[in-house]
């Protein structure tokens, strides 16, 4: 009996998928296993070997207490910047997207095109002019230097625009206007309650963008007490012996970090985003699917 051709194709497909899965999973698995091992074990043992919980505890302790609990300060800073930035981004993007989608004003189309153009512009490109602007306003070194820039979130505006223009029937707003609602009331009582999924989605993307932002805080902050966790991670690399062999000699009083500590720090740094995602997941999934089906 000949082996059917479509079975062969199916097998090839599965093999390709497995290969790619392995390719992308290996780094993640390695990252989560690394803190359970000592630096030596990391080099000598199999990449997928589990060290011990004892070592994991030590690694965790070392990274949290490093530099007078710097890690906790950075996390706190990141939280402040990200929550503030997210709040501002949502406050600005949701009404802006609503306005672009459901109201009429002169220059609406032009504004929409500009939103699209700046959306594809890399955020890094704006960091230098932003720095000059913030500096002129005397906000350099304050938390506002890292929160105010998130008021400009064209991606969020565009997402909101798509959501409102595809899911909210115009008659719904017309009905509210006839029912005596002012433009503000139409937004507040009709559009906004129906936009909960998109508020979560825009909020989530803004949070991730702010939390993972490196270049902006790199330019805007100058002191350890101001650093967010992403800048902190860079500091940690500077304190890791294997990445800076000449700085650390035996017997030096400086606390020396090792590669498993760094892996631990990375895990701590991404944990808040994971937690936010888990909590927002239900709202996020419904936001991503909104408009896909007609009710």
């Amino acid at each position, binding site marked *: 009996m000949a082996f059917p051709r479509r079975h062969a194709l199916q097998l090839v497909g599965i093999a390709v998928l497995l290969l790619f899965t392995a390719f992308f999973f290996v780094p993640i698995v390695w990252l989560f296993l690394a803190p359970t091992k000592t630096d030596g074990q990391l080099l000598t043992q199999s990449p997928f070997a589990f060290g011990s919980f004892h070592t994991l505890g030590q690694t965790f302790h070392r990274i949290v207490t490093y530099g007078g609990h710097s890690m906790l300060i950075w996390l706190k800073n990141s939280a402040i910047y990200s929550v503030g930035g997210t709040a501002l981004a949502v406050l600005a993007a949701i009404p802006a997207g609503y306005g672009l989608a459901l109201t009429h004003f002169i220059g609406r189309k032009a504004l929409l095109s500009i939103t699209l153009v700046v959306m594809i512009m890399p955020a890094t490109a704006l960091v230098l002019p932003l720095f000059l602007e913030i500096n002129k306003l005397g906000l350099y070194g304050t938390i506002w230097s890292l929160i105010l820039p998130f008021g400009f979130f064209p991606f969020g505006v565009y997402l909101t625009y798509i959501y409102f223009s595809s899911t909210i029937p115009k*008659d*719904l707003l017309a009905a509210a206007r*006839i029912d005596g609602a002012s433009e503000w009331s139409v937004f507040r009582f*009709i559009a906004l309650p129906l936009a909960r999924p998109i508020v979560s989605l825009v909020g989530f993307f803004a949070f991730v963008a702010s939390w993972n932002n490196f270049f902006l805080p790199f330019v805007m902050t100058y002191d350890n007490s101001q650093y967010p966790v992403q800048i902190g991670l860079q500091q940690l690399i500077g304190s890791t012996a294997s990445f800076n062999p000449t700085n650390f000699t035996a017997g030096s009083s400086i606390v020396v970090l090792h590669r498993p500590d760094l892996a631990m720090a990375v895990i701590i740094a991404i944990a808040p985003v994971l937690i936010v995602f888990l909590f927002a997941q239900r709202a996020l999934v419904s936001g991503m699917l909104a408009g896909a089906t007609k009710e």
Partner: protein
Amino acid sequence: MATVAFEQATRVYPKSDRAAVDRLDLDVHDGELLVLVGPSGCGKTTSLRMLAGLEHVDDGAIRIDGKDVVDLAPRDRDIAMVFQNYALYPHMNVAQNMGFALRMAGVAKGDIATRVRAAAKILDIEEYLERKPRQLSGGQRQRVAMGRAIVRQPRVFLMDEPLSNLDAKLRVATRAEIASLQRSLGVTTLYVTHDQVEAMTMGDRVAVMRDGVLQQCDTPRTLYADPVNAFVAGFIGSPPMNLVDGIAEAGGVRLGSTLVAAPSVPARPGEAVTVGIRPESLSLAAAGDGIPATVSIVEELGAEAFVYAQLVGADGPVAEGANVKGNVIVRGEPSAAPRNGELVHLLVKEGSTLFFDAASGARLRG
């Protein structure tokens, strides 16, 4: 209680060279149910939305109780509207939907609850007050949309094809309900539909529109018996009036080889005219009498039968009708219904024939 008046009201959509609503003059009397009817794209919904304030008025005036409202925002016009798709607020329950306008008007919570309950009682939807719109059937949603309108006690009701999303049986039941509700409330109502049966059965008066232009506004009976042009004649009535083109002669109109006798034809001999004959004005006659026709199909409805027939003469089929393609429809008794393909003879009831100008469609009066 209010009157509504459109005065030369015009709407031209941007980038369009033709007016969607062209110099509309229309008076809606106090407490009247006036139906705007016409084929899709005739401007009836645009007219309604102009009155609601949802559509810009390019020229002319629209008055409610004599006051021009063209520059007023929808919220300041004191009108309520029932939308084709109901436009219920999906995140609010029925009571909140119905009470929204009162809440916007700053009515006290207790009063809102009382008035919502009273309106719900009228519409028999009290048991659904806590439900969300998506938990309701189409008919229930339609009632909630009505409830949202009546709870406000506005000066004018606007209804934009409120029955078009209901199934046929429910539509018939609901149209009687809406008509009787409107009469008991006595609120001036402008009602839009494309369905001429709905228009005829519900309206105190019916305004027929075509291509943005008002054709005729009168009582259903007058529209049926005395249409001003061939369009109204063909649009009003189901099945529609038979419109057949012919040539005027002394003593009648010649359709092909047959002369349809008429005591006074309001056209000079030799002029092209369109003859309008209602299906009930035609009857089957014995051979040798009347106009010969071949039966193409018979629709039996129980109480009556519609015979679709093709007029024939000595030299073949007669000119095609404007809205009845080459055919005439005869309303007859099911017991006397002919068979398909049979040759029949049609008699025209005396004095029932209407004449229209073949080119313009305007009514020719004797």
